[in-house]
């Protein structure tokens, strides 16, 4: 007889992998945008929310299937992300704004996105809390206790697939290398004749696509409301910061953060009686500790050449 705690921990690991994959997808978008454009983008959280709602609208209002809905979510959010750069961040960059200005502006963009959605959702019945009409089917039940469903497999696979695709992009294509070059030394990239405007656009689109997919997964697996992305914000920042804003570091840090967060809070509850309400504190504390004591990040993937510069 396997003890109950073992099942609970196993369940936490499975859930943690799912959550961690989301943190990775979201955090990666945050990282790539930050590295290329220096925007620490608070509005990234809202992109996730928009992804959840776009998928819902696609399925409920347009009658699309699950896969088309995921694609719609990714594309819509890519558009929203691109628009926020074209309308706000790029003009600010042209004016020579500082990273702090970008950050404050992104708070403004986030407020506009979140609360305009909130306003619409509040006036359309049934939109304040959404969940995709198709529920993820169960793949397996382990030990009669831990149910593993489609999303538990989908999210990590998506994170892996994305990582692989991005790896090819960044190491095999001229565009991908140009993106890394721009992230590494924007001035020299410009002098080298790299079309930094195009690099910028592609960066926002990639960040948007990943955020849109994350939003889709959230509304598929649990449910979403207009604040759902905001609740993920500090987690995605924690992933990006712990990963030292390196591309692969962020993905790995995100997954670890998801698993560690779930398992730690379960164990802390079991042994110390800490309530699960403190789970977000894990992300916050990790983030603050990393920033204070190892601001260059704890998981830096140097061999892949995506190191953050001092």
């Amino acid at each position: 007889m396997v003890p109950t705690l073992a099942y609970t921990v196993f369940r936490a690991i499975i859930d943690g992998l799912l959550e961690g994959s989301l943190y990775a997808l979201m955090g990666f978008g945050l990282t790539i945008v930050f590295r290329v454009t220096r925007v620490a983008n608070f509005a990234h959280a809202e992109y996730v929310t928009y992804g959840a709602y776009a998928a819902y609208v696609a399925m409920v209002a347009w009658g699309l299937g699950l896969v088309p809905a995921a694609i719609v979510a990714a594309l819509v959010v890519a558009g929203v992300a691109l628009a926020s750069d074209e309308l706000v961040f790029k003009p600010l960059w042209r004016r020579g704004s500082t990273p702090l200005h970008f950050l404050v502006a992104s708070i403004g963009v986030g407020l506009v996105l979140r609360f305009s959605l909130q306003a619409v959702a509040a006036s359309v019945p049934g939109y304040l809390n959404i969940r995709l009409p198709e529920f993820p089917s169960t793949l397996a039940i382990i030990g009669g206790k831990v149910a593993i469903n489609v999303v538990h497999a989908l999210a990590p696979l998506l994170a892996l697939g994305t990582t692989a695709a991005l790896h090819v992009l960044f190491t095999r294509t001229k565009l991908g290398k140009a993106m890394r070059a721009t992230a590494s030394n924007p001035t020299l990239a410009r002098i080298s004749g790299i079309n930094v405007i195009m690099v910028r656009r592609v960066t926002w689109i990639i960040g948007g696509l990943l955020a849109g997919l994350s939003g889709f997964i959230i509304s598929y697996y649990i449910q979403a409301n207009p604040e759902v992305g905001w609740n993920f914000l500090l987690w995605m920042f924690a992933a990006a910061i712990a990963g030292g804003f390196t591309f692969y570091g962020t993905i790995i840090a995100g997954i670890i953060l998801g698993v560690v967060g779930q398992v730690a809070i379960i164990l802390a509850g079991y042994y110390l009686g800490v309530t699960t309400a403190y789970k977000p504190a894990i992300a916050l504390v990790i983030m603050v500790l990393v920033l204070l004591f190892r601001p260059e990040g704890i998981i830096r993937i140097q061999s892949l050449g995506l190191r953050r510069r001092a």
Partner: protein
Amino acid sequence: MVDALSLLMDPLFIDIMIIFGIYLILSLSFNIEYGFTGIPNLGKVLFYAVGAYVAGGLAGWIALRLAAFTPQQHLGGPLYCAYGAPQTITEVFKTNPAFALGVFLLSMVIGAAFGAVLGILASYPALRLREDFLAITLLAFSEIGRLITRTEEWPVCAHYGIRGLSTPFAWLGEYSLTVYMFLVLGIAALMYMLAEKLVNSPWGRALKAVRDDELAAEVYGKNPARVRAQAMAVGSAMAAVAGTLYAFYLGSVMPDDFMPIVTFLAIAMVMLGGTANNRGVVVGVAVLVLVDRLFNASVLERKFGIPLPDYLSNSIAYLKYVVIGLVIVLILMFGPQGLIPEKPLKTPIVEETKKKLKESVEGGEG
């Protein structure tokens, strides 16, 4: 005359004026940190909450002692979390003027002290982090704080909050809020004068020097670390005072009143008015408090008789945050100076030192 009197008793007018006073203090404190010293304190609301909780805790604890309150049922946490406690607290406010006024003053002093100490502690990362990471760190601090207040019964009654407070003039009956309004505005005016005096003093010039050119400030004999800690101490104490005023006005202190959105609102107010300009901040606060209070379906419909279509009455409370977000974005894009630009302030020694430094830097590059 009659009109003026009825205005002074009008709940909406009182509400707007009190919220104006409170946000003015909060925004001035943000301006000292961000505008004058360059510390992007996205954790502002934490210090505001500290003042509110100090007020709630002190008032609750003392009132219940005075009333010799024994709860019939007490599930945990301090006495003021118990069932029946809020009613008793309110009763003491109404019947004991000495208590009401005394606990108000005491809360202001102790709240400000707590705020200042916490501000100094929170300034520690300000010495080590780049601006944007510092902003995120301070935001994380404020969220950790909110998480604790949501969860812990000791000493804050978790999500139930501390309730039953009243204005220090509750014993005046129907005039209570009107008199409190004058008090809040008076304190706000004092804070404004204090802020103006501070930023125009040598200390204020040190803040700007640290903001504009840390190296020059150091040459000029200012320790940037200490100057930042001082700015955070002053700013946080002021924010705590604002929080205290808020607690006595609202009558309750609840964790979710202290979301980051409060900080963002203060940011928008400062930016709209003009960063590093206290006069501008007054204008910015006035405009956005009006937006904040008037984007309210029941106010518009009942008070002003403006009929709203259904979709608007459901969503108008959210639209105000859209407006606030737009203000932040548009100001940054089109008028980073805000409505009233910062007064250029020349400090001869700093200017000279900066010039010399610049020369030597350029020389090195030659």
